[in-house]
């Protein structure tokens, strides 16, 4: 035995030497399983489960073509959320950091996305027998960066006065937009037929499982956020622990989403890494509760245990009197 360490036998809580009672482990588990299965069945029959259909780019481009085109232009000129995100999608942003800790940057670009190429130029280039579109793309690609920015900025500004025309097309006041209107109307056309949903899938294989690009594209617009707001799923609506409809969601994330409701996290550009760090530290503390002085003593200071073991202490008191 090392000096200073108490022998195991000296620990009064290691082994119970008092009375025992009959117990049927298998019976207890069987009853518990039956009860839980019954409760689950009742909840299932009464409430079922939510299944809100996913949003598609086709639906989005038909229901809100102006928002679709506005998002597409921001992908083209590199001002969208994804275009300026940084790692793991591109190098156009620094990523979040906490002091000198920059894991987002350190891990690098693992899912490369060139928003102009992937969301606009490549889908347009894939259209067959559309010389006007190919010419517009070529004109745009061969223009200087300054010229491209002038066209897209003017077009973006004009979208503020856009109107939805026949066939869900977008009409804007005339101006100096270069090839951008042809490109955008063609992209809108592809999207409205459903072609863009498939064109943006990451893999070119027949079977698909990676929806990173179409999801990021829709997330850059307002289509997902509008639906989420209606379903009380936004971050400032404690959305992380909510579910579509009135169903209970991931309520166990209450502490995680709590931090996003208060300053400085609610206003910080580095909120995510700050909250992840706090939750990581709290999770570690939770695991190590038995080893943290003070925390491990709380149950002794606040005697909830007297309620839990009230029968036991009552028996002790009775035995002490006799």
């Amino acid at each position, binding site marked *: 035995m090392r000096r200073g360490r108490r022998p195991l036998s000296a620990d009064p809580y290691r082994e119970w030497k008092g009375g025992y009672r009959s117990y049927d482990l298998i019976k207890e588990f069987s009853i518990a399983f039956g009860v839980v299965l019954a409760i689950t069945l009742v909840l299932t029959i009464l409430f079922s489960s939510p299944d809100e259909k996913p949003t598609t780019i086709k639906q989005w481009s038909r229901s809100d073509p102006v928002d679709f085109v506005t998002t597409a232009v921001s992908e083209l000129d590199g001002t969208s959320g994804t275009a300026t995100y940084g790692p793991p999608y591109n190098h156009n942003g620094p990523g979040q950091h906490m002091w000198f800790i920059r894991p987002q940057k350190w891990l690098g670009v693992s899912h490369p996305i060139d928003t102009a190429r992937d969301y606009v130029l490549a889908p347009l280039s894939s259209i067959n027998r559309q010389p006007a579109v190919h010419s517009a793309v070529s004109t745009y690609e061969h223009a200087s960066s300054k010229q491209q920015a002038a066209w897209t900025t003017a077009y973006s500004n004009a979208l503020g006065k856009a109107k939805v025309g026949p066939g869900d097309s977008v009409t804007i006041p005339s101006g100096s937009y270069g090839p951008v209107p042809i490109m955008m109307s063609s992209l809108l056309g592809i999207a409205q037929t459903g072609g863009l949903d498939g064109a943006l899938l990451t893999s070119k294989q027949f079977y698909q499982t*990676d929806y990173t690009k179409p999801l990021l594209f829709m997330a850059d617009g307002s289509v997902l956020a509008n639906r989420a707001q209606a379903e009380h799923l936004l971050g400032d609506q404690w959305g992380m622990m909510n579910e579509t409809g009135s169903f209970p969601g991931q309520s166990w994330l209450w502490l995680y989403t709590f931090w996003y409701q208060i300053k400085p996290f609610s206003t910080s550009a580095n909120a995510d890494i700050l909250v992840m760090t706090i939750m990581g530290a709290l999770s570690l503390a939770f695991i190590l509760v038995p080893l943290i002085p003070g925390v491990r003593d709380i149950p002794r200071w606040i005697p909830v245990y007297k309620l839990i073991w009230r029968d036991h202490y009552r028996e002790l008191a009775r035995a002490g009197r006799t």
Partner: protein
Amino acid sequence: MTIISPKPAPPRRRSWTLAVRERAVGAWPPEKLLADEQPSYVSSWIYVFGVLSLAALLVCIGSGLVLTLKGPAWWHDTGVGLFFNSLHLWSVELFFFFLVIHLWGKFWMAAWRGGRVRTWVTGALAFLVSIPTALTGYVSQQNFDSQWISTQAKDAMNSAGIGAFFNLMNFGQMYSYHILVLPAVVIVLVIGHVLLVRKHGVVPPFEAGKKSQRRRPRQSRSKPRPESARDAPRA
């Protein structure tokens, strides 16, 4: 007359198998693994929530298995599929509900006392690993919920660098995590947790060493253990 004495058995060779068997049987003798008695102080509704959590986990695994075998799109198109998806959802909700109460109960009992730190740690880890297990399920639903959760939660993953290899918008990857990797970790942790509970038993009340162990409670239902069983550590 020739007396033939029996040949002594050769000394048993030590082996890894023998060592593991002896250790396992020593730690979990049958009467401890499937105990038919328990300490007299185990008399509260709070003790029920551990086994309820286990039962909910089993319903969750069972319903998830059916959903997995029928494929991820099945539940969107059929009434039976929706039924099993609902079973899965509600069993998850019940699992977390029971588990949280179980954890709080164990905290207020300071259930890590008496060499039970590993029991607490495995339980806490099982709870923490259950959270990403549920998250990957939510993003594997293939509906609007998945779209919204994956595009929102990606920022937290990316900020910590996790997003580089754990992409919430990659359905194939998330589905694999949800139906295989993370449930396997949860199951291993839960099995380890239950084995530790069977090995060390339920933590005795505070001050048990000073009072209650000197004087056996005079409960009509309680009974002393036979002398032969007292040498073995109790479950």
